[in-house]
């Protein structure tokens, strides 16, 4: 019963979201609701591909910046560490 309630609630939420998307898309492009619905799979595929490429790019950029930041912190730590010959001489 709980699963069915969740399913119904999720379906209603998805329906509302889909209706909002179709309405906004139709208002933006001037197309009919049917055309927007017909283009929905390709639109979702395009969005998925774009999000995937963005995620890949963001991952690479994040790794690059993280390595650069780690090297910078390492240099700062080495520069801030007291030298051994300073305590001898």
């Amino acid at each position, binding site marked *: 019963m709980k699963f069915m309630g969740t399913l119904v609630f999720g379906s209603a939420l998805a329906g509302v979201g889909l209706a909002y998307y179709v309405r906004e898309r139709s208002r933006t492009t001037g197309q009919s609701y049917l055309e927007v619905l017909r283009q929905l799979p390709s639109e979702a595929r*395009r969005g998925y*591909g774009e999000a995937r490429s963005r995620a890949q*790019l963001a991952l*690479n950029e994040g*790794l690059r*910046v993280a390595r650069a930041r780690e090297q910078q*912190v390492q240099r700062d730590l080495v520069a801030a560490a007291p030298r051994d010959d300073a305590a001898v001489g």
Partner: protein
Amino acid sequence: MTSALLLVAANAPSMALRYAAAFFLVVVGIGAIYALVRLGGAMGKADKLLADVDTEVVPLLKQATETLDGVNTELDKIDVVMTSVVDATGKVDQTTRAVESAISVPAKKAAAFGAGVSHAVSTFFNRGADGAAGADAQTEQDSAAAGAWSASAAGSNPSGVWPAGGADAPAAEPAASAAETAADDTPTTAQERDS
């Protein structure tokens, strides 16, 4: 009588010399006695001084010896304390190094993780000026993946939506799938090429 006077006159120089010698010897004897008396007094004072030194310096030397023994004992204790201090300093140095390594490594990783996540999120949600150059290749792949989207965006449909022609969308979907497969197999970044 005359002969007696002549005899006295003849012996007068030797007698004068004898009296002079006797007087000299008497004077020398008196001087010698005086010197010996003074020397005896000085020797008595020296004897007394030595006796005083013997009675006063020896206890002082004993006390100095005891003091030096105490100082040596204290120096031995200080040596032990200094050894302990050196050991403690070494342990503190080791502890400091361990704490430094235990703190610096996670701090370094955390700083790198924060910077990477921040830049990745900003790159994902905002393709700004710095991300535009690196995103060109990805944009081309996106265009290939989307099939006819680049043409539609540059053509009569500036809003970037799928063209109204019904036959284009089904034909573009296999092309998009093939392009995505090709994009997945081709290394796009320097890191992927290195790996």
